């Protein structure tokens, strides 16, 4: 067993999995409260990546930032999170709220429409070319050369940053949902929206907050993606969104720990498939969907999902 290779693959997989998990959290949160598959969520992630890019450019780019680089990175995250959070609230207000009492297909179609709208708007505004964060040029390349080097294992500063940021955001979200008043309101709305409304809960506000937080996480994931993988483009949201949706389903849609676990499982699964399975890199997506099918066959509600129990007799 080549342990060095295994550990390096795990690092690669956890990095990718962290990004997927952050997007999957938004999917799961919205589904938990609204039972809505928000297909525009991947495109919100793309917008976050572009906001981060423009903030980086605004402050002088990767090689000669006008303020200290760590401050630029913090601003990139904050701007992307706030920008995407607001975008999520706008999308909810105009695309989903009017359809809240319509059949379940209507918001689904609306979500697909919003996805195309955001993607094509990005094409119009940002252009078609692939843009690069050039984060490998940060501090003359120190962010990729420095880091943890243990034998053949290499974990760059950028990867450490991405994994740490994702972990921190997940912890904050978990604490927020578990311990704050708004978090309790979100859980109540997710458990039974009508009952929560009858108890005096401002459900519209709770839903808008859910969209804000979920979209802010997608925005952070977008910046993380740009920092680690550099290339951003207007249709990047579809692919990542699909993986994140799969992660949410594998983890148990509606479950926040499940979304995190699902994201990590997919990231690590892709990395291990590339390293160990025949033609693993060629059929990465195939292996991801095999994982999905196996999980759903063994646990139809996902890894940490709860069965949807309904009373069938009076």
């Amino acid at each position, binding site marked *: 067993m080549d342990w060095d290779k295994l550990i390096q693959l795990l690092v690669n997989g956890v990095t990718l999995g962290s990004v997927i998990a952050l997007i999957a959290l938004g999917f799961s949160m919205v589904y938990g409260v609204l039972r809505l598959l928000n297909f525009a969520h991947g495109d919100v992630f793309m917008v976050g990546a572009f906001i981060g890019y423009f903030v980086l450019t605004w402050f002088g780019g990767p090689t000669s930032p006008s303020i200290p680089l760590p401050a630029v990175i913090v601003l990139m995250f904050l701007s992307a999170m706030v920008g995407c959070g607001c975008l999520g609230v706008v999308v909810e207000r105009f695309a989903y709220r009017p359809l809240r009492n319509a059949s379940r297909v209507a918001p689904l179609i609306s979500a697909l429409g919003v996805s195309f709208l955001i993607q094509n708007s990005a094409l119009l505004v940002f252009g078609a070319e*692939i843009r690069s964060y050039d984060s490998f040029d940060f501090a003359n390349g120190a962010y990729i050369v420095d880091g943890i080097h243990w034998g053949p294992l290499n974990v*760059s500063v950028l*990867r450490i940053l991405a994994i740490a940021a994702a972990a921190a955001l997940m912890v904050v979200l978990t604490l927020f949902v578990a311990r704050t008043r708004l978090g309790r309101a979100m859980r109540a709305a997710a458990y039974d929206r009508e009952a929560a409304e009858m108890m005096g809960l401002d459900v519209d506000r709770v839903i808008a907050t859910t969209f804000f937080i979920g979209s802010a996480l997608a925005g952070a994931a977008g910046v993380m993606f740009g920092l680690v993988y550099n290339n951003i483009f207007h249709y990047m949201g579809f692919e990542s969104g699909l993986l994140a949706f799969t992660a949410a389903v594998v983890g148990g849609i509606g479950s926040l720990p499940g979304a995190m676990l699902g994201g990590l499982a997919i990231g690590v699964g892709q990395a291990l498939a590339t390293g160990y399975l025949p033609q693993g890199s060629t059929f990465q997506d195939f292996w991801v969907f095999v994982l999905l099918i196996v999980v759903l066959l063994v646990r139809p509600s996902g890894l940490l999902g709860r069965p949807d129990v309904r009373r069938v007799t009076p």
Partner: protein
Amino acid sequence: MKKPLLLGALVAALGASAALVAAGGAPSATAARATAAAVDCSRTITLGFMGPTTGPAASIGQELRDFSILYAENWNDSGKKPKIDIVQGDTQFDPAQASTIAQQFVSNGNLLGVIGPGGSQEVLAVGRIFQRAGMAFSVASATRKSLTIGKTKVKGLFRIAAPDSVQAKSTTDYMLKRLHVKRVFVLDDQSAYSVPLAEAVSKILAHAGVKVSRSSVAQKQSDFSSVITDIPDGTDLIYLPIQFPAKMELLGQQLKEQGKKITLFASDAGYSPDFKIVGSYFSTFGPDVRTYGPAQKVLASYYRRHGKNAPLTTFGPLAYISGQVMVGAAVRACKDGSADRAEVLREMHKTSLKTSIIGEPVRYTADGDRIGGSFFTFKVTAKGPVTVR
């Protein structure tokens, strides 16, 4: 059906459809009928341009477009008659989209010939449609060998770039004789362009006693770190016949991230400001014309139209020639005031330019390959690409 199963089915369906799109599944072609009738072209000749002006290859596609129509624009500006009208179509680097545009072009009765598309997979998608319509199409950069030979040969295709067989030989010559490679890792991007080239290069290297490992990633791949982890120890060169320079750059940077020092050798798309890994090589179908005297007038007109910072790689000059020969053939066919597609096709075969902006003559074989097409090898330096062969 239980809810989770329904969700699973939805995910699987979405995944399957995404895979189909990625594989370039074109809609079944309801072939538009060829418009064989001659059209009046005494005042205006209508030609088509198709290329990936948006999408993942947009930066190359826009350069292809700007150079492909440059000859016609200069022709019109000089007051020559008939006027050249170019109808444009964006393939988005998607074979299905290319196929749709080809059908639109074929249905346009005034359209006598086409400049483009850009890549081999697009040519494969449009080839039969144009062939049925008897339409000539002049392509700058599609290099897949089988486009002009064997069962997949496309009649009506005329290309400026030399085919993969020439590239594979030129590339491996350099690797073996100058770089003295012993172990090479070949990574393709699963496209109709990339796979045959990767196979041809692997075969020649293996025949020469070089240890060759192969791997492949989807064109949409955003992360190469696990592929890099899997590269065998002792590899001294990675050959990358992939189409997006930004992805090659990422791979090069992720190599550094994992502390691996391996030389990169890219193919056609390597001549790009997005690929700047110093010490890398690439092989491409055109020379560097930036300092080539006879090209300066054309380059001046290009920069005048598109700004002094407009991109110039090795794609543009070849695209210019592809436009030049198509306009030339159409004008000759329209000498008597009318022409049909068959006449333009015949005139394309008769093309004979003594020289061009790349300093080479342009004449075609009966199969549509340019006679004497060659490949050039560049090395990436801190100051940009430098021709090494």
